[in-house]
């Protein structure tokens, strides 16, 4: 058994290692080392906990059994999961952190002696506040992430579910959570504790159902943040530095990612949280646009255009992930490169269903990361490029965002695809994107629409090159 001071120092060390783990992600070269620091930090934290409890009886054996059981499930999932399913996986993992926080809080509430927090019915006030906050946020994270998971997995419809009085209801529930925490802390009643958990589960569910599929990058980042705050709340209860540091890191990380995602859509955080895109604007855009002429082509035309180009920019979006077209795309690019055509990739911040989703898919298909560029880095290059190949993206290329102040996406940063000499747009049909508006790009002189499945079209183009 080691002293409380020594173990506190070790927890601090593991907190610092977690900071280094995130620091490593500033570049792909250092990232693998960063992940190693993270693993080391976790090993130290767990080992120190064992040593500080000094309890190596039968209970210890059961702890190991549960760690191994959970660990092998986790490892199995990590090796099996396809890269396209990463958003679902992350949402699922968030829900587990949330539920674990709830369980630890329940355990501490039922048996406060084990944590040095007082006796049941007479828990230290500060600890009780921290515990109930951690439990409430954990419960919200859990049920919210479950809904996000179901929506991403397609088990639940991705479209926003709204009903009358939704916002007032949510507001009432949120206020009642605060009142419940207050009452719980003054009465120490276990009934109120269970009620608090139930209400928190409910609000997590209600908060996420009105948010649509393409807003998932914001939702996942937000839940990431919540899972951090829940961990921090429990960290305060347990007086554990590693947990407090980690909670703060994860909390701010998720908050920053949500901010970046919102900025990528030029929408305020509240606008996203309060409900779907289409719901706010169903006005003028549907008028007489159907009639406008569209040029459409086949794989042969596309191959011809690309063969005669000297530079091509690829714009991937969520559709590429759905069609699993990333490998076919890379093969097409390989053929282009053999013909001495310069190829780069342009990624919009909100392309896909989570931050950085497209980058991972391209990396999976062996695309070198130094050929992949962010919006600000590449936007000026479109004017000098010969062909833009838009595959599975839509709203993020819509020039309306720059020209029409009436449009719901006005002001959103978009890729200047229309400045290319010609644009190849792979899409199944002319249907509007998530924002529910028509893409002006379809009707431009220099746009050639390729109506097909993204993967099949890409393969056909490669054959024709």
């Amino acid at each position, binding site marked *: 058994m080691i002293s409380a001071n020594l173990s506190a120092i070790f927890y601090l060390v593991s907190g610092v290692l977690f900071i280094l783990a995130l620091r490593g992600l500033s570049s792909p070269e250092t990232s693998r080392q960063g992940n190693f620091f993270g693993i080391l930090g976790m090993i130290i934290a767990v080992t120190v906990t064992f040593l500080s409890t000094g309890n190596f009886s039968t209970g210890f054996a059961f702890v190991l059994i549960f760690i191994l059981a959970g660990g092998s499930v*986790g490892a199995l999932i990590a090796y099996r999961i396809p890269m396209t399913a990463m958003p679902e996986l992350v949402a699922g993992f968030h829900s587990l952190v949330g539920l674990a926080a709830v*369980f630890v809080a329940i*355990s501490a509430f*039922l048996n406060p002696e084990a944590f040095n927090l007082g006796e049941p019915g007479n828990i230290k006030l500060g600890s009780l506040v921290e515990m109930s906050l951690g439990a409430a946020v954990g419960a919200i994270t859990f049920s919210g992430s479950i809904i996000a998971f179901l929506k991403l997995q397609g088990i639940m419809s991705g479209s926003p579910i709204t009903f009358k009085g939704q916002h007032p209801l949510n507001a009432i529930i949120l206020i009642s959570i605060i009142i419940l925490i207050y009452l719980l802390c003054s009465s120490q009643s276990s009934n109120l504790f269970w009620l608090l958990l139930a209400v928190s589960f409910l609000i997590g569910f209600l908060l996420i159902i009105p948010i649509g599929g393409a807003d998932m990058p914001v939702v996942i980042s937000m839940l990431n943040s919540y899972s951090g705050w829940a961990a921090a709340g429990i960290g305060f209860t347990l007086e554990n530095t590693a947990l407090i540091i980690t909670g703060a*890191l994860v909390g701010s990380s*998720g908050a920053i990612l949500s901010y970046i995602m919102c900025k990528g859509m030029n929408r305020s955080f509240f606008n996203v949280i309060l409900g779907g895109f289409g719901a706010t604007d169903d006005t003028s855009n549907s008028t007489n646009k159907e009639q406008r002429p569209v040029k459409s082509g086949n794989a042969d035309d596309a191959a011809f255009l690309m063969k005669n180009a000297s530079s091509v920019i690829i714009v991937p979006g969520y559709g590429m992930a759905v069609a699993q077209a990333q490998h076919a795309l890379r093969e097409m690019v390989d053929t282009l490169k053999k013909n001495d055509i310069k190829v780069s990739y342009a*990624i919009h911040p909100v392309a896909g269903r989570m931050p950085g989703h497209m980058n*991972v898919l391209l990396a999976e298909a062996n695309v*070198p990361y130094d050929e992949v560029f962010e919006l600000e880095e590449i936007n000026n290059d479109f004017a000098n490029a010969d062909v833009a190949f838009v595959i599975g993206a839509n709203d993020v290329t819509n020039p309306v965002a720059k020209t029409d102040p009436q449009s719901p996406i006005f002001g959103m940063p978009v890729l200047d695809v229309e400045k290319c000499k010609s644009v190849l747009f792979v899409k199944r049909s002319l249907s509007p994107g998530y924002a529910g508006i028509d893409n002006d790009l379809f009707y431009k002189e220099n746009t050639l629409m390729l109506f097909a499945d993204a993967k099949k079209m890409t393969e056909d183009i490669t054959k024709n090159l």
Partner: protein
Amino acid sequence: MEIDPLIFRLSIFILSIFVGYYVVWSVTPSLHTPLMSVTNAISSVIIVGAIIAGLSGNSDNIFNTSSIFGFLAIALAAINIFGGFLVTQRMLAMYKKKKKDKK
């Protein structure tokens, strides 16, 4: 008068938020997905609390309501720790630079 230890923990918390703020802004956008999976893994350090909860029963009575919740939390956190770090590892291994000697 002595300072409540809570204030020290609060200081650590606030300073860590700032550390997190600057560290996360320096993460390259192409690694945002691994960032999420690794934050997932590290926030499962909550397993520390779960272990204490799991070991709270005495030797004649390993499973009481409180420790059962602890054991469940251990399993959940372990899924996340192994899953999170391994999937991050898998993703990061895929990020490769352009081969210089091509052509």
